[in-house]
């Protein structure tokens, strides 16, 4: 890592309460906090004995120059993805315009993130990527998952539509939102175990749909009603999915950790546990299909499983 000296930008701190992690960003300027408010204000929280005990400290540093890294090294299947390198006791992340470390010397974790320009920290390509990756690893340590999916809430139950890019997650999200559903995210959702099942949590991570941010923050969560593997096609069709196919599809939909050897055992365990506790079905639908008809078919199939 080419941080010549660990120079903080300022002297201010900010606590963010995300579903799988409370993170305390240290060394910020007031201007940086102001910029971070735009996307993350609902996830800001006040210090308390609980946050003091459980939060991950993250020092924000100045970086002398942009990381020397090729675009090929920060792309995965055609999409931007910061490079992850496993260290002895943590992970080093390198993006086009930031470097970061997540270190676990014992049970407690520390992290740092370094950027060249003051306002870079608030860019989604920096802070959001960092938080997504941190959340993915933290969720696994809690036996949960970060899943590439659209999370839609009907009647206080979360329907998780998992699908690859261009499977129709954002289109479905738009239709559902217009139809009155609450949107957790159209891109990334956090599922954490609780009791006999899993709950889906609101996250500040979003795709093309953007942030509605009508949700309350990182502690808002809903019981998972079912997992729906989303595919595009003609007409509305639903079918039950074999457990092995469900595990395979969901593994493929767990970004940031599904190609990390050290996380493989935990990831398998979490996905197999999720499939054991929740019904997984396949939904084939077209761009023009009505959301009320889609949801009726989904609910009917989930009840039948």
């Amino acid at each position, binding site marked *: 890592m080419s941080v010549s000296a660990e120079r903080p930008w300022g002297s201010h701190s900010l606590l963010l309460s995300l579903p799988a992690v409370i993170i305390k960003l240290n060394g910020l300027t007031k201007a940086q906090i102001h910029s971070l408010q735009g996307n993350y204000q609902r996830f800001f929280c006040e210090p308390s004995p609980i946050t003091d005990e459980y939060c991950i400290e993250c020092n924000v540093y100045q970086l002398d120059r942009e990381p020397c890294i090729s675009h090929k090294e920060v792309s995965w299947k055609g999409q931007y993805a910061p490079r992850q390198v496993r260290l002895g006791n943590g992970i080093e992340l390198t993006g086009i315009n930031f470097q970061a470390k997540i270190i676990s010397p014992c049970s407690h974790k520390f992290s740092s993130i370094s950027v060249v320009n003051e306002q870079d920290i608030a860019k989604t390509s920096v802070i959001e990527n960092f938080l997504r990756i941190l959340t993915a690893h933290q969720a696994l340590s809690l036996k949960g998952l970060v899943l590439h999916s659209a999370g839609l809430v009907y009647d206080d139950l979360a329907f998780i539509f998992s699908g690859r890019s261009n499977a129709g997650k954002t289109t479905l999200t738009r239709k559902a939102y217009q139809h009155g559903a609450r949107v957790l995210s159209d891109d990334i959702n956090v599922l954490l175990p609780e009791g006999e099942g899993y709950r889906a949590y609101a996250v500040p991570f979003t795709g093309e749909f953007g942030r509605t941010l009508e949700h309350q923050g990182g502690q808002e969560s809903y019981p998972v009603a079912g997992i729906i593997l989303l595919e595009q096609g003609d007409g509305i069709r639903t079918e039950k999915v074999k457990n*092995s196919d469900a595990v395979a599809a969901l593994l493929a939909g767990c970004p940031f950790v599904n190609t990390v050897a050290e996380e493989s055992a935990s990831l398998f365990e979490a996905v197999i546990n999720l499939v054991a506790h929740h019904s997984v079905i396949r939904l084939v639908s077209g761009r023009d299909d009505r959301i009320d008809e889609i949801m009726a078919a989904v609910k009917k199939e989930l009840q039948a499983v």
Partner: protein
Amino acid sequence: MSPVSHNRKKDMETLLDAEQIRLTSQVRFRAVGEEGVLVHLENGRVIVVNEVGLFLVQQLASPVTRPELARAVTREFAVSADRVQADLQLYLEELDREQVIEYST
């Protein structure tokens, strides 16, 4: 077939039989019910294999030769050695295409 080419074929078979086959270090798998799910850490591909495939993958977790693998399948599934030879070859070719296995002598 000439005696020379027949001998070459025998030599090739002997060589192939001595080859050790194993899962690459980039593959992780789990049994899910009677089937198996494999993840290739390098390319992110996830594949599902049937009951026989899972048995093979479990055997391939440690280096094993083709004859050893064939004997294990014959014992496990109570099928004829001839049938196993043909199916095993096809299966190994498929796993090789998926970059799941590697060979060494």
